[in-house]
């Protein structure tokens, strides 16, 4: 067998989306072409410790996680170029070789540019968005502000910060009420820097808005208030970077009660025989709906491609849009990079079809390409000013 690329798949992390990340990562590893790649699971537990070892590949292992009993190894990535992989914390100067890093986190510290910053400092090839695109994409309202700046229609919203609410709740409630599209209840309230519908709530009046904000502030210091649009439906699409950028077919996710909940996304088995959640692949959805206006499909595809470019995204991202049933107006709502299940369920239905195994190939190829460009740039200069 030819030499396989060592791919460190990082998942878990200090995030409310920790479990979803584990599901996404194990699913991706099972699709990975192990004739070409040697996947190395790197699990970051809820306290921030990094582990590697084969037991991490078994889903059942996480029910009673015991690193010591399973003989897991503690590793870390030092922010120092040229080390060639992960450092074993138990043995100084001992390196676990890695060729490519594949972060598959959802949420804080993994999807928001933090881990990407570490990859940049260590100068290692990695899959997915860089620091800037990750950080912007994670902050829902700031992302919308940036995309509105390049002419894309975005769903209006109002950012409410925890310290401001603690200082003067009434003033913040009044500010929300005075914001465009937010004059009338009901309103949706969600963490500005989180995903997977964790903490999301619906407020039918002023008192409920205050209570919903309090719930959101358990998970985030910023809350995003958005209109609850009963006359709109959601349409999602995925974009893939690479030597030729591609856009997937669109999907209409099916919510059980107005808005997609954590239960809709992850606790329904999607008809799978085992009943085990397959992450976002579990969600009930209509892929490439035949009755959706082709004009809407084309516009959404165009907006997603433009947003991907405007943010400087890499890897794969999923863009979520809201479409008015009345007049077909389209509003970009948010983006996820990486999306749950890497949005493979969209790519397997796209033309030309991209199976999950091939999607992973594209992502790793893109990471190596980017590392190559980076290596071609001169980042440092020799001492000159201090030598004078």
């Amino acid at each position: 067998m030819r030499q396989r690329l060592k791919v460190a798949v990082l998942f878990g992390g200090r995030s409310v989306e920790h479990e979803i990340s584990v599901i996404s990562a194990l699913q991706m590893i099972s699709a990975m072409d192990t004739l070409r790649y040697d996947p190395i699971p790197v699990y970051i537990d809820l306290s921030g410790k990094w582990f590697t070892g084969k037991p991490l590949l078994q889903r059942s292992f996480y029910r009673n996680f015991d690193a010591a009993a399973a003989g897991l190894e503690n590793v870390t990535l030092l922010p120092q170029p040229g080390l060639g992989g992960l450092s074993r914390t138990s043995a100084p100067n001992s390196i676990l070789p890695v060729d490519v890093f594949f972060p598959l986190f959802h949420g804080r510290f993994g999807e928001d540019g933090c881990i990407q910053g570490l990859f940049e400092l260590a100068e290692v090839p990695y899959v997915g968005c860089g620091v800037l695109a990750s950080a912007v994409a994670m902050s829902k309202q700031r992302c919308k502000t940036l995309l509105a700046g390049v002419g894309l229609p975005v769903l209006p919203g109002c950012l409410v910060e925890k310290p401001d609410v603690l200082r003067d709740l009434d003033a913040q409630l009044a500010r929300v009420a005075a914001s465009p599209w937010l004059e009338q209840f009901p309103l949706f309230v969600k963490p500005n820097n989180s995903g997977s519908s964790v903490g999301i709530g619906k407020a039918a009046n002023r008192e409920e808005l205050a209570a919903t904000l309090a719930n959101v502030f358990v998970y985030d210091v910023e809350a995003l208030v958005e209109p609850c649009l009963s006359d709109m439906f959601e349409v999602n699409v995925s974009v893939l970077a690479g030597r030729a950028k591609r856009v997937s077919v669109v999907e209409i996710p099916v919510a059980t009660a107005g808005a997609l909940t954590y239960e809709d996304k992850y606790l329904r088995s999607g008809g799978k025989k085992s009943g085990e959640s397959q992450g976002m692949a579990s969600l009930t959805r209509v892929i490439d709906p035949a009755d959706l206006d082709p004009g809407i499909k084309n516009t959404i595809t165009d907006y997603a491609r433009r947003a991907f470019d405007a943010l400087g995204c890499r890897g794969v991202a999923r863009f979520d849009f809201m479409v008015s049933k009345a007049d077909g107006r389209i509003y970009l709502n948010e983006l996820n990079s990486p999306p749950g299940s890497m949005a493979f369920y969209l790519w397997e239905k796209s033309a030309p079809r991209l199976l999950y195994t091939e999607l992973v190939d594209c992502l790793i190829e893109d990471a190596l390409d980017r590392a190559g460009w980076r290596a071609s740039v001169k980042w440092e200069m020799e001492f000159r000013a201090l030598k004078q």
Partner: protein
Amino acid sequence: MANSTDLSIFSVTVGAEGASAASKPWLLMMHGWGKNHLDLRPMAELLSTTYRVLLVDLPGFGRSALPKEVWGTRDYAERLYAHLDQQGIGRCDVLGHSFGGRVAIRMAALCPDRVGRLFLVASSGIPRPRSFAQLAKMRVLGLVRSILKFCDKCSGTHLFANWFVPRFASRDYLQAGALRPIFVKTVNEDASEDARKIKAPTLLLWGQEDMETPVALGQRLHQLINGSEMLVFPGRGHEPFENAGHHLLTTYITRFLEAHAA
């Protein structure tokens, strides 16, 4: 016997609808021991862009009826051909996993002209290669089994069922229920001669960490099947299609099809 068509077989088709379906070849997919057609359903969905897929519950499993007699895998093969006839399917490609692979080998040998291409996923079918120590242990256990059965017969005890079986029988044997006689008959079959007769282009797909049908068994089949190709996936076990592994297998099956166009 097996070639009688009165035993009901449950099957579903995937990708057989639509105007373009008629131009696609058929693929018969057969699951492993103790499973049913749903095990291979996700892979059938992916393969249905190329194929009209017939997914079956093998007799005695899922929603198919239990054979009244103690069938061997040749009986299964004959009954499957009768089912294909009932469905109006002549020549088709065949994919079998584990026990389904054992039946697929029989089918490919029985009517070589009816099998276009053959895919064996962690297939059983020939005796598992064993080390000297393993063979010695089996001999000892065989002797103990014979002694216990003799004692049971003479004295009316139930030493074999109550002492030997819980300790030494395989999980499949213990869980076989009404299929136990068929399990005992088929598990000891050797389809080596039939494997040699296979003419269809054959792809063997194996998980390197398969403990039930180890890679050595697949390599022996690979030697027996003339012109076959074998892929061994590191990090995969006896069900390399589990979770999203069906994407991996479909990727390589698709490449094989491109190289072996009908």
